């Protein structure tokens, strides 16, 4: 990251904070704006509010405790016991530490254990603790960490997740006498994705808390009873005294076994039936509450699929000419021999701002309203439109639940043909939030449509 970039960030941050303080100043009757941070001795309720009020987490302790950062539905499930604590010792391995040039620097012991995990239909999330020796590195210097050559399987030898090269994969399959072909996914060799991040550091014990969120989209995890996690390297990105990042690899061998509890094998669901719907073109085909969310599937008929106007197509060249920035891309493929390519990109902000001030504004509005007819997705393209609540479900207690915002959910949002739209989504209402009757409110072209639902006994 270059100095110019940092200075731009500094100016943007300064602008935003100035404006935020100004707005608060205008809205506050008591001008007590200069609170001292030092006067606040203990953690209080935090509301991560982005100036006008979007809440990301209920309170700071929950925020820190919210290990997996997979939204309110998952957090509710965890708060109600939908998590498996694992009591085990560290899986220790004596490792060779290698630098980015392949030089063997020294040896060091690294221990890994799983602290807890959960599995729902679309997510398998693991909370690891990684214990390092201070002779190798102090944890607060670690910028990034990844488990390499990892293969996760279950008791039926299904491959739940893998990230390794073809040679290692084939060697693994030969040893276990498995007949999978590298990258040829099927129902027993899952095409899972991964989001991983460092959640916390423990300086005194030199431990890193690492989160692995493995996910499937639009297909479900099998009913595994036992899970095996094995990997042979850990990749580190470590900051040196100059602030530069250097890569290291620890070569070792770790093998972790997990027992999956019954509730995560069976994953019971609660279904609802439609009592009434305000729009006769809505056909509700799925309603089910799970431990971590509420899935709703609707087929909407008599809805026009728009054609992208030729005039807007011609504007693309204009936008590209005026706004694009050419930069080198290092993510074209994973081949380490690939040369970086020049890629032109245009930021979303430039595109939308261009249309706000162009003669094609209403054509642009019309297209995106029809292209994204459900919920408030179109607001991402037409930010000058009045804001709406979007889609939500409300239970009899008046609790409102919104669409979840993480990748591991089942979702569909597309035209099936010229006048049918398939909408499938997951709300963060869970089995623990249910009432006999609930109401789903779905926006169609910005107007709410109510669907009354009743629990099926």
């Amino acid at each position, binding site marked *: *990251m270059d100095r110019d*970039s*940092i200075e731009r*960030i500094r100016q*943007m*941050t*300064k*602008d*935003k*904070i*100035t*404006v*935020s303080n*100004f*707005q608060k*100043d*205008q*809205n506050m009757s008591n001008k007590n704006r200069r*609170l*001292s*941070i030092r006067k606040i001795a203990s*953690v*209080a309720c*935090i*509301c*991560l509010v*982005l*100036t*006008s009020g*979007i809440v*990301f987490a209920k309170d*700071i302790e929950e925020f820190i405790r919210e290990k997996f*950062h997979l939204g309110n539905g998952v957090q509710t499930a965890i708060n109600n016991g939908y998590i498996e604590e694992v009591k085990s010792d560290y899986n220790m391995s004596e490792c060779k530490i290698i630098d980015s040039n392949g030089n063997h620097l020294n040896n060091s012991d690294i221990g890994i254990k799983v602290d807890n995990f959960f599995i729902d239909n679309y997510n398998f999330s693991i909370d690891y603790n990684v214990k390092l020796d201070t002779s190798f590195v102090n944890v*607060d210097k670690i910028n*990034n960490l990844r488990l390499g050559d990892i293969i996760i399987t279950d008791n039926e030898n299904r491959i739940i997740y893998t990230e390794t090269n073809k040679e290692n994969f084939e060697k693994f399959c030969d040893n276990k006498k498995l007949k999978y072909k590298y990258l040829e996914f099927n129902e027993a060799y899952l095409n899972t994705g991964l*989001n991983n*991040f460092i959640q916390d*550091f423990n300086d005194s014990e030199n431990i890193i808390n690492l989160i692995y969120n493995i996910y499937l989209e639009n297909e479900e995890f099998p009913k595994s009873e036992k899970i095996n996690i094995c990997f042979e390297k850990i990749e580190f990105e470590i*900051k040196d005294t100059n*602030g530069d*990042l250097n890569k290291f690899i620890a070569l070792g061998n770790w093998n972790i076994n997990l027992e999956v509890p019954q509730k995560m094998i069976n994953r019971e669901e609660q279904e609802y039936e439609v009592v009434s719907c305000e729009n006769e073109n809505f056909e509700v085909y799925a309603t089910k509450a799970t431990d971590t969310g509420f899935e709703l599937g609707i087929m909407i008929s008599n809805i026009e699929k728009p054609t992208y106007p030729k005039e*807007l197509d011609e504007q693309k060249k204009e936008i*590209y000419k005026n706004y*694009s920035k050419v930069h080198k891309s290092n*993510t074209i493929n994973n081949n380490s021999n690939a040369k970086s390519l020049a*890629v032109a*990109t*245009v*930021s*979303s*902000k*430039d595109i939308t701002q261009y249309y706000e001030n162009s003669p094609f504004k209403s054509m642009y509005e019309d297209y995106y309203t029809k292209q*994204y007819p459900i919920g408030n997705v179109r*607001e*991402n393209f037409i*930010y*000058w439109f009045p804001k709406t609540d979007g889609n939500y479900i409300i239970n009899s207690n008046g609790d409102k639940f919104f669409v979840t*915002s*993480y*990748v591991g959910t089942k979702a569909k949002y597309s035209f099936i043909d010229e006048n049918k739209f398939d909408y499938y989504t997951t709300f963060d209402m869970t089995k623990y939030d249910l009432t006999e009757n609930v109401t789903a409110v779905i926006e169609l072209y910005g107007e709410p449509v109510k669907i009354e639902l009743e629990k099926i006994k």
Partner: protein
Amino acid sequence: MKNENVIYMYIKGDVLDIDKIIDDFSGYLYTIIQNAGSFAKEDIEEIISDTYLILWNNQYKLDLDKKLSSYLVGIVKNLIKQKYKVFNNNYENIESYEDILVTNEGLDVVIENNEVNRKIIELLNKIKQDDKEIFYEYYFYSRKIKEIAIENNISESKVKIILHRTRKKLRKELLKGGYSLNG
């Protein structure tokens, strides 16, 4: 082992030392966002500055003994997921920008909050430089009127007049544009 990353190390006076935080963490956050997905550079910078804004707005609720990086990583991951989720859901429908050379990378999920902010910043960039600097000293650096007067070698009443005039101009222009400052 010294805890360099602990929040109390980043306090200057009564508030967070945002300049130091920007210097120490921007590269780190940049890497996280870059690894998370294909965002344009401008979008990455936007996410990072939004992260600092959230941190600033909640600085009075932070546990001073905790690591700043824990908060920052949590905030930025949520911001990325907000952007990434919408992008993933609608990728198949983003026909407008299918051309390889023009890619719409990332959606600004905080647009609805930043519309008024952007307008205010735009208006601030049009006012006299001296007046703008005083405005920033008051609202960004949280300096007192007396301190600003001494630093700029002007009277306290002049500082008050400049602030009053700038606020009035902003309110007037915002109202003209149909914006409101009240929530």
